Every structure is written in C-alpha cells, then in structure tokens.
C-alpha cells in the first residue's frame, strides 16, 4: 500500500490529507491509493464538505474517483442528525433507489481527523438555486425535472416507520404538525425578541391541524438548492441531516412554499416548474392522492419554520458567535415569511372554515 498527499491539497494541512488517505487506503480494495486533490467546498455553515479526487491502483476499485468528504463544521449546531446518522439515512435511501450520491465509507474514529466523517461519490451538476431558477438552458427541461422530483419524493415516502436501519430517528406519534408547532415555540422561547406575528401563526397552525395523515420518511429540507442538476437531469438529492418521520405533506409544502421559489413565484414547484407536474410525478409513483388543503397548511408551516430559522441565524450574528453580514440580512427577511404566512392563512380561511 502506497500513499501520497498530493501537492494541490497541501493548503488544507498535510496531516488531515494524509490521515484521510490512510483511512481510505485501509477501507478500499487497493494496492496503492493517492489523493490527487482535496479542497473545501463553499457554503456549509454547519457541515464542511470537501471535494476529494483519488486514484486507486489495483483491486476492484481501480481507477480515478471523484468523491465528497462530509464532516461537522467546527461550530456545530446540535439540532440535526449526526454524521453517522446521516450516513445511515443515505445508505437506506440509496438502497431504496432514490437518486442520491452513493454513500461509501463512514469513519467514526476521532483519531483520524478529530471528527466523524463520511465519504460519498461526487455527483456532477449545479445545486445553486439562484442559478437553477434563472438558467435559460433549462427552459425545456423544467417540467420533466419537477415531475422527476415528485417521483423521487414519492419513492422516499414509501419508507415507513419500523424500518430497521432507521430506528435511531425519534418517533413522530400521531400529531406531526403539533410536534412542529411545539418545537418552533421552544425555538422562539430561546430567542430574546418577542415575535407576535409568528406566535399568531403558530396558534393558527395549532388550531387548524389537518387530520392524521400517513407518517413517512421525510427529507425535511427538500427544496431547490438541495438537489443537483446536470444538463436538465436530476443527478442527486443532497443534505439529509434533517430527515425525520412526518406527514408526507410536509415535504410537499416545503418544496412549493413561496419562500423557496427564489423570486420565480409564478413557478409554484420550487421556482422551477408547475405544481401540476410535481404533483403528477408524486401521485403517479405513490398511488396516493395529495390533499391540496393539507399542502396549503404545510406551506404556512414552511413560512413559519423558515422565519424561525432566519431569526436563529440572525441571533448567531447578534450574539457575537459569528459576525456575518449574510446572517444579519437573513434576520431582515423574517417579515417576508410572516407576510407569506399571514396572506396564505387569509386565502385558506376564505376557502375552508378555520
């Protein structure tokens, strides 16, 4: 077994690159393994993702491999799944045929790089929402793309509680909506400024919960920005750290919510395509009928959830934990989510009695 740190990766710290190389050489079937490149990818506040380029000689993995190493950022927020849990989720959904980067190896030994990490195959494409909603090259592909995203979501939702490899996920009980309301109230309690509009929306969400629906495996952050597209085709669904058991309408409402359309509010499915195409894909695979009123309810929940998260992000700036103009400006987006929620509640109240 030979090992080489590679010169391009040197700015990361030779020790880390060497440790990762040694770990990979141990888990791969190979005579020799070389790390050609390793660099930090942009955009992870809670996780760090490294693009990894390796060359393997001999064995069944012979050849070059483009990989991603995912680990906790140093300022870890303890509200989502651990990396080991996320790896287990990725394995389960990959085995279920959902389009995700193939999970390869998990390292829980803290002596390697100091934190748990896993390695997955790198998928090609673009995830940046602002680019995807504006790309004129995608015009003819949008409807089939959102239909495909509906199909993928239905495949994910076929995974039900009791799945043996996912026993670590907290049980959801019969009131997923109420669980969320209680959680967001706890989040608001931890913040300093009072939020009367969000409180009012949470009361409405408590009062108007939809009837008990099927509880399924939800991605819980299924939206434009969290999937990769290459030449009009879906190449991978990313960011599984919020996966949880919940009402299947929650993922549908989150995907379609106005706040995740990135300025293209006319395209109701994630700023990318029509709601009809997304629903068609979902219903075609699941055989279930989407309850349109339940989705509208979960879109109110989506606006409230994003509002609460935006407050938490602003708090990270305000508390001095992480000085950042981006986090500070996120705090000024909160009234958009509040107005989204208030207007949608008006619309729903005109249609169904509250």
């Amino acid at each position, binding site marked *: 077994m030979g090992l080489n740190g590679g010169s391009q990766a040197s700015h990361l710290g030779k020790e880390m690159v060497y440790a990762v190389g040694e770990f990979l050489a141990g888990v791969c079937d190979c005579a020799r393994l070389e790390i050609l490149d390793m660099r930090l990818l942009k955009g992870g506040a809670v996780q760090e993702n490294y693009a990894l380029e390796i060359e393997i000689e001999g064995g069944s993995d012979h050849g070059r491999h483009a990989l991603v190493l995912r680990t906790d950022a140093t300022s870890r927020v303890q509200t989502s799944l651990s990396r080991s849990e996320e790896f287990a989720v990725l394995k389960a959904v990959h085995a279920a045929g959902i389009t995700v980067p193939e999970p390869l190896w998990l390292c829980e030994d803290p002596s390697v790089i100091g934190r748990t990490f896993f390695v997955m195959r790198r998928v090609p494409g673009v995830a940046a929402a602002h680019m995807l909603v504006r790309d004129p090259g995608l015009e003819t592909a949008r409807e089939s793309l959102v239909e495909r995203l509906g199909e993928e979501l239905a495949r994910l939702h076929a995974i039900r509680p009791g799945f043996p490899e996912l026993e670590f996920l907290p049980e959801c009980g019969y009131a997923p909506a109420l669980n969320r309301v209680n959680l967001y109230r706890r989040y608001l309690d931890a913040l300093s400024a*009072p939020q*009367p509009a969000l409180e009012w929306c949470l009361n409405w969400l408590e009062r108007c919960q939809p009837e008990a629906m099927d509880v399924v495996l939800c991605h819980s952050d299924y939206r434009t920005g969290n999937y990769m597209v290459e030449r009009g085709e879906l190449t991978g669904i990313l960011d599984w750290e919020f996966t949880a058991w919940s009402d299947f309408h929650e993922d549908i409402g989150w995907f379609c919510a106005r706040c995740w359309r990135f300025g293209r*509010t006319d395209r109701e499915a994630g700023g990318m395509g029509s709601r009809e195409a997304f629903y068609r894909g979902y219903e075609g695979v699941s055989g279930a009928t989407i309850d349109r009123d339940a989705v509208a309810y979960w879109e109110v929940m989506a606006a409230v959830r994003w509002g609460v998260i935006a407050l938490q992000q602003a708090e990270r700036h305000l508390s001095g934990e992480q000085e950042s*103009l981006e986090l*500070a*400006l996120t705090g000024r*987006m909160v009234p958009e989510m509040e*107005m989204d929620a*208030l207007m949608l509640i008006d619309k729903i109240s005109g249609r169904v009695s509250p």
Partner: protein
Amino acid sequence: MNNTPDGVELLRVAQKLLREHLLSVVSKEQRYEVLMVANAMAIAARELEAGESDLREELRMLSELYGDTAVAEAGNSLKEKVATLNKRLATDIRSGVLDGACAQGVRALLKAQVTARLRLSNPKYLKAVGIE
C-alpha cells in the same frame, strides 16, 4: 447643527458608487458580497429616513389594544414602550387571551407591523404581493 449632506444622502451616493462602478470590476463571488453591502445600506437609509415615525405609529396601535395606562407604565422611551408592549402582545397571543373580541384588532395590528417592517427591509416584496 447643519451637517450636510445628511446620512441618507451619503448612503444613497455610496450605494450608487457600489452598484454602478464597483460591481462590474469585482469577482463573481465578490459580486454577491457587494450586493449584500448595497442592500444593507439601502435598508439603513430607509430606516434613517423614517426616523421614529414607524415606532410612533406602532405605539399608537398598541395603545388602542392595551389602553393609555398600559402605555404610560410600559417604560420611559418610545423604543422601550414598544418593546415592552410587544413582549406582552407575544405572550398574550400564545396564551390565547386575545382570541375573543379583540381577535380582529390583533390581526390588523400584526399585519400593519409586518407591513411597516417590510417597507424598510424589502419594499419590493410589498409591490410583488400587491399590498403597495
């Protein structure tokens, strides 16, 4: 004191410099940062221009709900009074004590508060949803 040009004017011309001259010469990643800086300056300029008028209007609406005595006891400065009464409002909404006769008034107050904040943070949003 006559300090001219005033803060609003300084922020306006600084933003113009950012958007019209600096934006085109920076890298793609810095473009996003320049736009964030310009946006922050625009929000600050609108706030400066509005002065205390929003706070006074907010206090007027809160006093309709809670009465003049509550306003008088809510603190010394305008800012403090609005903060105290908003804390009470948030608590009262969650506990449900405002659900009865004043529910409509509370709803109107909340919508007015959110609209006022949007006028400062993102007036384009209000136009896009047809409120203003």
